[in-house]
């Protein structure tokens, strides 16, 4: 009833609407202009808020005056500019870290960087293979137990991952893969259960038309040939997405990595090392500056890599979420 009435009203008043149209259009335009201005203001404000911590980290990494917070409280700009924090960071035996050794804090940034890089590369390579195997199979092959496997992994995912940390540590310790040998241990653990994270790439494979597989099968291709000759060439975005996320993961992990390294400076990754640096009970003001310097050194290459491959990341995230 109501809807009928409304259309009637519109029909009756439409002639007047047409005559008014140019004027109304103008009004809309200025309204749009105001709207756009408001949006620009909000976006600029947001950009400032979003960039602010990063700018601070960057600026603070160049501060070399120990008492800057007393001299100029509330300023984000360094009182005295210099490269000292970076120099200290790469010089574990230098004067700066003497205080830390008293506190039994071990510093070896060079080693941490190398460790993290090795873990990241290995994880990126192996995890990508595992995730793609899993997601491809679940998406495009039909076999007995497929639904069961997916439900089973869904249920497994409901357990907090941290729960398994204790036992995984013990297993790694029995294998001799902890402390200074933590690198292979970390790679093993990161890669081994990575098959559970198949959702996003499965979502991608689901969108490739099945008729492609069928056509290839009719032409006599085996299932393996379908994967390598037909699907894989089409899957560049998701392969890059998987490599990118797998590579970035180890740079941020500090919980399990800290547990496995067990306070051994040679077994730490950057996240654990730098986190130890600031969370220790020492009251050394400069440690934050050194932390910032370390943060800048890690963040710059990762950010550049990320921005370079941003397109693929966006495709992966949106595709995965839309498919659910």
């Amino acid at each position: 009833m109501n809807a009928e009435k409304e259309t009637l009203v519109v029909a009756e008043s439409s002639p007047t609407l047409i005559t008014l149209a140019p004027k109304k259009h103008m009004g809309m335009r200025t309204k749009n202009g105001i709207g756009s201005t408001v949006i620009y203001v909000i976006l600029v404000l947001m950009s400032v808020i979003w960039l602010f911590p990063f700018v601070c980290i960057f600026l603070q990494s160049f501060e070399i005056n120990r008492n800057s917070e007393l001299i100029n409280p509330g300023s984000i700009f360094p009182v005295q500019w210099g490269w000292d924090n970076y120099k200290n960071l790469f010089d574990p035996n230098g004067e700066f870290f003497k205080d830390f050794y008293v506190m039994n804090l071990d510093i070896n940034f060079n080693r941490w960087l190398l460790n993290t890089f090795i873990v990241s590369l290995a994880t990126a390579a192996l995890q990508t293979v595992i995730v793609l195997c899993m997601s491809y199979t679940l998406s495009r092959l039909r076999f007995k137990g497929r639904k069961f496997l997916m439900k089973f992994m869904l249920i497994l995912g409901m357990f907090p991952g941290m729960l398994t940390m204790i036992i995984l540590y013990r297993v790694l310790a029995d294998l001799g893969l902890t402390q200074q040998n933590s690198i292979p241990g970390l790679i093993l653990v990161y890669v081994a259960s990575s098959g559970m994270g198949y959702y996003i790439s499965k979502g991608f494979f689901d969108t490739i038309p099945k008729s492609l597989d069928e056509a290839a099968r009719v032409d006599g291709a085996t299932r393996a040939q379908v994967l390598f000759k037909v699907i894989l060439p089409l899957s560049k975005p998701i392969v890059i997405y998987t490599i990118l996320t797998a590579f970035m993961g180890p740079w941020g992990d500090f919980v399990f990595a800290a547990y496995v390294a067990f306070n051994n400076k040679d077994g730490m990754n950057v996240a654990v090392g730098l986190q130890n640096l600031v969370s220790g009970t020492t009251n050394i003001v400069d440690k934050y500056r050194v932390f910032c310097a370390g943060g800048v050194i890690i963040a710059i290459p990762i950010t550049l890599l990320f921005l370079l491959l941003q397109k693929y990341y966006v495709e992966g995230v949106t595709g995965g979420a839309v498919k659910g």
Partner: protein
Amino acid sequence: MEKYVGLEFLKLNRFQRFLYKFTHFFLGIPNWFKNLGLAIWHLIKKIGLAIKNEVLDLIDTFRKGDWKTRVSYVVMGFGNLFRGQIGRGILFLAFEALFLFYMIFWGGSWIGQMSTLGTQGPEEVYDTVYDTYTTIYHDNSFKILLYSVLSLFFIIAFIYTWRLNIKQAKIAQQLALEGKHLRTSKEDIRSFADDQFHKTMLALPTIGILVFTVLPIIFMILVSFTNYSGANNNGYSNRLFTWVGWTNFQEILTWQVGGTAYSAAFGEILGWTLMWAFLATFSNYFLGMLVAIMINKKGIKLKKVWRTILVLTIAIPQFISLLYVSRMFADNGIILTWLRQLGLASGSFSFIGTNANPWVARFTVVVINIWIGIPYLMLIATGILMNIPVDLYESAKIDGANSWQQYTKITLPYMLFITGPYLLTSFIGNMNNFNVIFLLTGGRPDNPAASGASGTVGYTDLLITWLYKITMGANSEYYMASVIGVLVFVVVAVISLVVYNLMPSNKNEEDFQ
């Protein structure tokens, strides 16, 4: 309450509709539980029937089988081996030999000790040669539990393989009887690239998940029924521990303030965890969507620049950004310094410090989480918004809908429909959002009412950070950590089941292909 259908429902006004849906949801709960019970009953019945069929088939195969098939019941792979399928036969036989070898020499004794988890702890023995006391380790409960679980895995795998071997023998016998071609080993190998391709692909991932996820989870569930803690042994468990039944669960679920105070802490933290997950999920969801709509609006320039700036928070590792942000909001951090200079904050005001007001700290954490969460949501929402058919908006405009109406009638329903599953996963992800809480506040400010034998508990602690604190604490009560882990699983599973059943978008995955 009567049920409205079709027009009757449409006649109701908005408020009545909402009331109707609301009451129906709650009236539906008993029915829902009934259905759940029925589903479980059907599952049990199905499993029982499957086992019955398997047993019947085993008997049937034995009766109808020739001597080669019958020998397969004891010597695995015999039926394949003597019908020319040498590869399969040897594999079966090797597996059986390995299993028996393992069981006789190790597995049997591990499983034998499983009921007690070891009886003889470490003892100090006087060493006459060096004139000192040395510790001699006997039973190790941790190893006994771990290896007996492994042995049970092995037994299940053996039973499955044994059954497979009999099936294979039966098939081979039948095919030989009908004079058909039996697959040779070469063909077997080739089939792993073709009709058995899924097995090749899944072998590595599933073994990894089995050993590094399933085994630890089963182990930790078992630990929640023991008294395993790291006290006095530096995390190395040469001390014995034993089964205690449901005691740990009783301790945490029986409401009791003071004393060990696990239950009080659990209640407090569970409440905040759920509230946090709700606030974090929906604040990010709606604000992220808003930002996406703003950036995607026609006529807004530099779209790529805005997006890139926001996306930086995803690129830079959280331990850098969050640790620094936590320092910015700390008592002597830059934000408070500025507010004090402007006269907007008193000297004692604190965002996330030890003396902060609990609700201020909680609010601050939610707000900072928005800083982290908006970029993800912005990306996801952008992808979805671009998929909404433009003609929907055009016809809405012709009908005279303003932009708010377009949003509530087109954009929002579409988004909610598509992202329903995502909302659920993100809710669960936020429940277990360790990084944000641990790096920002570490659980502070402390909650004296909830702290106790379990160590200090903070107002911003989530179940997951509490679990971590207990594990890393002075006493390392692994058993309590496991109980909390199991309870987190129960909560998550219940929420998922309820929400999944309410969701309109229970999509069929084949629809897209």
